[in-house]
């Protein structure tokens, strides 16, 4: 045990309380904002020496100088002369610490006078109440980082029961953009979770929505790990390796040729799956794409009617000119056209209680969807989706929506989260616990603005997800602008370097000025943590994720630019069959329209057949090659009688 580094002091003007105390140290002591200390009381209580654990939240330094003017006078107004003074003025380092824990915990008394020691690793565990979940039998600690002060290095653990439920759940991270702290922290935490989440608590997977940039696009690729980080990894008990199981999902570009993701380099396509949905998938979430004015009760009723009675069914009606089977947006448009023409013929204003204006409006809005979400929504109805029902343990599923329009992003988010929720409710997702990571919460769950479908979903996860095993890891730049119920329901909060303007908002008033200053100047790789077991925020350092960073990845694996149709087909199919060549593709597709070629590719990618060439070829209709045209012999024209007025 090291010697005392300070002494508790209290005055009438600055007394100690049960939750705060003051102490002074030598000038060169290794104490700073965020340092955890232990006070050993001098007087035993019930035969036990009280130990008080605290974290430094404020620091003061001053000399016996009464006025700055005295220093000016003392050195004749020349700052350079101060260095020649025979003696330095008496100086104090006075710190204020917030109490983390008192032992014994009852009776809760003001902090007594006593010596102050730097907390050692065992002290840190007690101070942060980690001893309750690191003990034999509990074992629910998830390393989040290393606390460092003086010579102390202590691993800080989060309690899995309070991170993933059932006690509390969810995690929110705030920090300025550009330092990669938020993404790095989440990547590191997922790695730690996958390594340390207790087997007996069941399987776990993560679905990450990549909403901007390429940061999450190379989770399976190794990144640079510095020596210092290697030591951190070892201390934290996590291997410095990229994620072993990662699956990527991304829709196509509007042209439908290439995947709309930063990770569309041919070398990385083996675990990238297209994300395409048809009419049925979209109609269930039409509300997401229609604004509040669109979805009045009448429109809603018509959409429900179409979903329940029209889509994927043989639909007949006396009004219609023919029988319809609606399976795609193209079919739906034909159905709408027939309905409206029938109403025009009858000169009727309504059909099956739906007013013609409502029908026109819904047709207009729904037909528009395939255009607004081109690449994701297919006219053909082909569906390529996440493996709902067969999610695998310790696997990351990344859905790349970074390059999509806002509507498409909302649709993807709403549908995937709904499906996840449905499966978790039925306990058939494939894993017991699922982490959903969403960045840019300022955009998706703002504190003000319209009550969107996505925000409602995020609120639902935040408030009820933990009962299902659905846990939200969310991130944003400005926590103060996120819906209060989303961040309020996050049991654990992480803070990277913060914007000073954000820190001046009322939500941070509970932090001391010194803590706020530290937050505004945090280095990359440092976090402040709030966790239900910790009565005060704690500063930790975490290792840089052992995965390739977005910038490096996009340089090493450049995003493929738009290519020809044949080249796009080649790139899509070659991961399934390396023997496929460009001439072969050109030969097979030469006679068909781009739509037919793309449809064949999508079907092949969905089926992943053993014989890729045969399957792909079989998707095309038979076209008999045109015979060379021969000019028919022209017969003689019978001349008409000149006087035949009728032309016979």
């Amino acid at each position: 045990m090291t010697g005392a580094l300070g002494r508790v002091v209290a005055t009438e003007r600055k007394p100690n309380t049960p939750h705060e105390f003051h102490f002074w140290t030598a000038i060169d002591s290794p104490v700073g904002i965020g340092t955890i200390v232990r006070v050993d009381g001098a007087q035993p209580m019930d035969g036990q020496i009280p130990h008080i654990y605290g974290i430094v939240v404020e620091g003061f330094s001053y000399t016996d100088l009464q006025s700055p003017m005295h220093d000016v006078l003392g050195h004749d107004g020349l700052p350079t002369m101060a260095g020649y003074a025979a003696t330095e003025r008496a100086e104090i380092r006075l710190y204020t610490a917030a109490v983390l824990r008192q032992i014994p915990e009852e009776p809760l008394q003001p902090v007594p006078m006593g010596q102050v020691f730097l907390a050692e690793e065992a002290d840190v565990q007690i101070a942060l109440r980690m001893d309750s979940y690191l003990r034999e039998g509990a074992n629910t600690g998830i390393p989040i980082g290393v606390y460092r002060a003086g010579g102390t290095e202590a691993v800080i653990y989060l309690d899995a029961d309070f991170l993933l439920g059932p006690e509390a759940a969810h995690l929110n991270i705030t920090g300025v953009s550009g330092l990669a702290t938020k993404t790095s922290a989440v990547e590191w935490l997922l790695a730690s979770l996958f390594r340390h989440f207790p087997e007996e608590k069941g399987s776990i997977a993560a679905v990450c929505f990549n909403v901007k940039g390429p940061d999450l696009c190379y989770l399976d690729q190794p990144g640079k790990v510095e020596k210092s980080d290697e030591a951190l990894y070892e201390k934290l008990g996590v291997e410095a390796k990229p994620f072993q199981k990662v699956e990527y999902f991304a829709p196509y570009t509007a042209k439908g040729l290439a995947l709309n993701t930063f990770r569309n380099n041919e070398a990385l396509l083996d675990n990238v799956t297209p994300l395409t949905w048809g009419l049925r998938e979209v109609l269930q979430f039409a509300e997401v794409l229609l604004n509040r004015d669109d979805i009045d009760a009448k429109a809603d009723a018509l959409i429900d009617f179409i979903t329940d009675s029209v889509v994927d069914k043989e639909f007949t009606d006396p009004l219609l000119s023919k029988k319809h089977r609606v399976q795609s947006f193209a079919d739906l448009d034909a159905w709408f056209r027939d309905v409206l023409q029938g109403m025009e013929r009858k000169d009727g204003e309504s059909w099956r209680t739906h007013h013609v204006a409502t029908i026109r409006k819904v047709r207009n809005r729904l037909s528009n969807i395939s255009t607004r979400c081109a690449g994701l929504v297919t006219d053909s109805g082909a569906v390529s989706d996440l493996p709902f029902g067969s999610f695998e343990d310790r696997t990351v599923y990344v859905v790349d929506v970074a390059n999509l329009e806002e509507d498409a992003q909302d649709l993807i988010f709403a549908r995937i989260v709904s499906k996840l929720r449905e499966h978790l409710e039925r306990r058939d997702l494939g894993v017991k616990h699922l982490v959903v990571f969403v960045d840019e919460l300022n955009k998706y769950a703002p504190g003000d603005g319209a009550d969107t479908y996505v925000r409602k979903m995020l609120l639902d996860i935040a408030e009820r997800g933990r009962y299902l095993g659905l846990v939200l890891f969310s991130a944003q730049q400005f926590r103060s602008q996120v819906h209060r119920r989303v961040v309020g329901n996050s049991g654990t909060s992480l803070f990277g370097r913060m914007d000073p303007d954000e820190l001046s908002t009322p939500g941070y008033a509970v932090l001391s000025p010194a803590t706020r200053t530290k937050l505004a100047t945090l280095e990359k790789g440092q976090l402040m943590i709030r966790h239900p077991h910790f009565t005060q925020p704690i500063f930790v350092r975490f290792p840089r994720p052992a995965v390739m960073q977005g910038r490096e990845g996009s340089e090493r694996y450049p995003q493929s630019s738009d290519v020809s149709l044949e080249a796009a087909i080649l790139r899509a199919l070659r991961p399934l069959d390396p023997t496929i060549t460009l001439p072969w593709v050109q030969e097979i597709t030469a006679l068909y329209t781009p739509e037919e070629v793309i449809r064949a590719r999508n079907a092949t990618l969905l089926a992943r057949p053993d014989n890729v060439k045969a399957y792909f070829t079989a998707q095309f209709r038979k076209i008999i090659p045109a015979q060379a045209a021969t000019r028919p012999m022209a017969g003689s024209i019978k001349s008409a009688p000149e006087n035949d007025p009728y032309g016979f």
Partner: protein
Amino acid sequence: MLVSNSSPDAASRAAIRLLMEWLPGASAVEGSTDLDLSSRAEQPQLRSAQIVEGSTLRAVNVPDVTRTMASGFGAFLDGAQKVRVIGRDLNVPLVLGTTSAAVRIRVNRRLVTWEHQPPRLEQKLYLPLRYLRPLTETLRPSSQTKYGQFQIVDTSTPDSSGEYPIEHPTVLLERAIRAVDRQRDALEDELAEAWCAIGGAPLFIDGGISRSERVASSAKAIGVIKSHRTLYVEGDALRTVVGLAKGERSSVFLVSPRSRSEVMSWYLRLRDPAGHDVLWGLVRVEMSRCENPTERANEISRWVLAETSPLALPDGRWDKMSYGIRDCEEFLRAIS
């Protein structure tokens, strides 16, 4: 010397409780506080002194005084005392005296307490036992003995002419105050002698060095006197001293106080007195006798001048006080 004034403390309360057990007629003084001893000073006087640097006292410009000159002092010594009338037994004042002294050494330009000789701190009861019959019977025959947790100093012993103090309360209080003074002097001398026997660089002592022969004869002890109730100059010499400009010193002269050791001394002006009283920024420096008083006085004067930075503010005596002595006083205030 520090004279502090503070509210009643635990020691005072413990002392009066103890005394009231043995002195049935004793009563506590309500709200007793430390006496303000600053006004208690000897009569101002002028004394002639033997000049040892030349034949007449003159002003000497201390050579090589620069902004960057270094000080040769390695430590500072000061003492403190508190006198509190905690009770009375009829007309007899019951006095609790607290005396302390410390040496603060300079390490890397910061002052810390000398480890070799820890600071001295004593709390004693100063009582005229002759007029406190029950206690006299208890404590006889020793004039200074232990009473509970407190040492007792008898302040009613006969003086050098064999006279006992009269029973006048003011006389008895004066006797107690002088006894406390002596006790503080003893503590200071004890530390100064220890320094002279062991210490390294010269010691800056707040006050004179002539009380102790061992200190007065040591080249390691330099006394700096801020108060000038006695001026060792008369006539033209007095006018020379009060006319000293900043950075000037007087000629060195010999000081031979009664019953004390003879030491060399000179006046030194630390700060420009323009706009202030004539004694502003004036100190008298004492050192042991030496063969080369001029060089030595110049060297020590430079050291004392170097100690004027940083300022000893907010102490009211900052014009004469060095920061090291202020640090000693603050230290003693903290521990006593």
